[in-house]
């Protein structure tokens, strides 16, 4: 296409960059910052290495959790007493800690140490590690994990991701790891100061498909050589442990990569929402991984590994949508226009009715997929349908939440604009988490 008037104008603007006029009128810094953001220059930080992972106890064979014994053949939406107790404490934590800290954590792009320490006291890590390795898990508790994610996100999704990302790694190693991988990496998750960790699947490519990875893993002797770039990796700069998905000659595989490995670094790419999760791109430049660190062996199911993350995102979205609805209900009852509460108008009230309908719809589809996963049944179709529904309906609720608050909703005075930004992630994220 030939250069038109706009193109010529841009060219002259470009020339302006070398102009001394900019310095004279003090515009230089502003314009340079724009250029920085556009080109994403090579700002890198090294990843974290804080401990040596070593096995204190050797397993003969991998520990695999069984399907829970309490479920029967009957359709049943009840949860167990234990699940209710966990929900009660997680809900209180989300209400008292996460919600009040939401705005600050979002601005700081960081979940505070204080919050993470308080989250640890919930003891959730123990449900990710089998009893034989010091944890408390005997049966799979996928449904519990889903409910926890939903309840945490009712407080704040960004911080919820920061809390859940390490547990996702532990869950995945419990679900898929070899005996050696389990005994080497899992015990640390039950320590007083468990490692930060995250799963890296997504890549900064258009129309990304988790089964078509640009990141490669090439076998060289008894090592794998990893190259590529991952995006939206929670806690990337602080994590001591990563599960990185990469393409091999035999299709996608997942590798356990320790923080601080040579060639492993992370960039900086602040995103629209879930900023408290401290997501960054993860760059792999000839990172060497021992052959023993390729996750799992015969029974590894990459599709299920990805879907377990997708379902975690669905659960988070449901929690955040519930937060939106719980927020707009009292707001619309109190906010008056034309002499009466705006909730008296069907145009307003029906939006809220639709929120309730779709939140329940998202729940049923997500719960169904998670129940099947917990019981060891196939759940690819169910997870696919859940994501398809949730990413659309959740965003609708996010945008309606802001709409109902009008101009107020657009400001940081109210949390709905953050929820709006957070909810967009559900259509974007792959990995990062694992129920």
């Amino acid at each position: 296409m030939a250069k038109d008037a706009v193109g010529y104008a841009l060219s002259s603007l470009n020339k302006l960059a070398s102009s001394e006029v900019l310095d004279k009128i003090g515009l230089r810094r502003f314009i340079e910052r724009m250029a920085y953001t556009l080109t994403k220059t090579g700002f890198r930080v090294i990843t974290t290495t804080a401990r040596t992972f070593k096995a204190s106890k050797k397993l003969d064979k991998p520990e695999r959790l069984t399907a829970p014994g309490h479920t029967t053949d009957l359709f049943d939406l009840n949860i167990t007493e234990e699940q209710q107790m966990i929900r009660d404490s997680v809900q209180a934590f989300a209400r008292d800690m996460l919600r009040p800290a939401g705005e600050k954590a979002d601005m700081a792009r960081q979940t505070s140490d204080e919050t993470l320490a308080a989250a640890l006291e919930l003891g959730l890590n123990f449900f990710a590690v089998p009893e034989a390795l010091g944890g408390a898990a005997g049966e799979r508790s996928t449904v519990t994990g889903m409910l926890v994610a939903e309840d945490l996100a009712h407080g704040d999704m960004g911080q919820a991701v920061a809390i859940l990302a390490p547990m996702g790694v532990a869950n995945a190693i419990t679900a898929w790891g070899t005996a050696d991988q389990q005994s080497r990496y899992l015990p640390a998750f039950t320590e007083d100061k468990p490692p930060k960790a995250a799963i890296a699947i997504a890549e900064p490519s258009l129309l990304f498909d988790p089964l078509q990875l640009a990141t490669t893993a090439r076998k060289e002797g008894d090592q794998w050589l990893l190259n590529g770039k991952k995006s939206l990796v929670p806690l990337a700069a602080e994590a001591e442990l990563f599960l990185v998905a990469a393409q091999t000659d035999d299709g996608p595989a997942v590798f356990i990569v320790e923080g601080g490995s040579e060639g492993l670094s992370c960039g900086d790419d602040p995103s629209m929402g879930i900023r408290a999760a401290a997501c960054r791109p993860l760059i792999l430049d000839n990172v060497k991984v021992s052959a023993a660190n390729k996750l799992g062996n015969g029974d590894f199911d990459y599709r299920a590994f990805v879907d377990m993350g997708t379902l975690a995102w669905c659960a988070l979205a449901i929690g955040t949508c519930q937060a939106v609805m719980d927020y707009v209900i009292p707001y619309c009852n109190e906010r008056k226009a034309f002499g009466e509460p705006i909730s008296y108008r069907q145009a307003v009230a029906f939006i809220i009715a639709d929120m309730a309908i779709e939140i329940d719809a998202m729940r049923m589809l997500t719960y169904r997929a998670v129940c099947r996963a917990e019981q060891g049944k196939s759940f690819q179709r169910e997870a696919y349908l859940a994501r398809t529904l949730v990413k659309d309906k959740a965003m609708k609720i996010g945008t309606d939440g802001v709409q109902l608050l009008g101009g107020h909703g657009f400001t940081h005075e109210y949390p709905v604009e953050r929820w709006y930004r957070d909810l967009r992630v559900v259509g974007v994220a792959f990995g990062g988490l694992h129920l």
Partner: protein
Amino acid sequence: MNIEIPKKFRPIMNNAHQVALSVFRPISRKYDRAEHEYPKELDMLASVLDGFNEGDPESSAGASQTGKGRITNDGSVKNGANMSTCLGALELSYGDVGFLLAMPRQGLGNAAIAAVANDEQLERFKGKWAAMAITEPGCGSDSAAIRTTAIKDGDHYVLNGEKIYVTSGQRADCVVVWATLDPALGRAAIKSFVVEWGTPGMELARLEHKLGIRASDTAAINFTDCRVPAENLLGNPEIDVAKGFAGVMETFDNTRPLVACFALGCAKASLDRIRELLKQHTTLDYNRPVDNVSAVEAEIYKMEADWEATYWLAMKAAWMADNKKSNSLEASISKAKAGRVGNYITLRCVELAGSIGYGEDELLEKWARDSKILDIFEGTQQIQQLIIARRLLGLSSRELK
């Protein structure tokens, strides 16, 4: 938590599915064209269903079984008659919603009798086909505005008024008529009466010509000084202003998930058919992200996701009823979602099949006409939204009109 259909319901689902494919589908187009003609093929089927209802209510698909069943409250989880009825109705609707509505002795009137009749009435109306008459020319969703009056005169009530949209009103043996004992007292004064055909003063005004569900007749009935025995009043004859409308409305908590299942069955027919028609043009393996597939594949995935979510919403509402949990909100949620999703899917499937879908060689266009009523009767989309919104916002009908 377990979100699966229990194995024990497989036989009834399978039976209903067989009826849908072998009895309903082959005559679907015939009675769509021959509106008002009685589908005599249904008589034999109805007898079979009666057998199910008599022998094993848990395996019955009949509307007369909603709200009851062999449930004892021992604290354990129940999957009972509400759920099995919903599942059976869904499968039958997969065949043809019109026929399901036209099934002898499975009318909404039968559901009302099953829900509120006393033992003596149950015995007296046993085996009768009962239609339901609520709507009037001047009152649709607003049932408190009913103007048909029932004035006590000795051991009779005298009914006067005009009822419309009475499903199977002419074919049924009797009609459950909603009438007010005193229009000044609002909802609390509305009672239902079983009026048998042949009662002097009860007269068929006309049968409607409709957009869809043409196999199911829709009658307009006039009542002129129609004397009904006092013992035909269902429920409590006293006007209890405190309790008000609740008793009458309870029926809906059981029937709304059922109507949601009508919509689900109808939509499933369309969805299955469009997948079949487009088999050569689509790959539906739940693998590539939905934004990376073709537009038609994405649309089918989205419809399937909506359908499946709606299905489990209906199961949730039915499960709550089976377990004696209050489910008014969930019943409305399932009906609202099913009404809109069912209508959307059936219409979209016609569109996706192009002129083939629009033509009468396919049933897609029929299902798209049938589905519209399911977002209207048993409470329109907007009424469900009102119920849901009032409940969530804690507003009265005076505040949120």
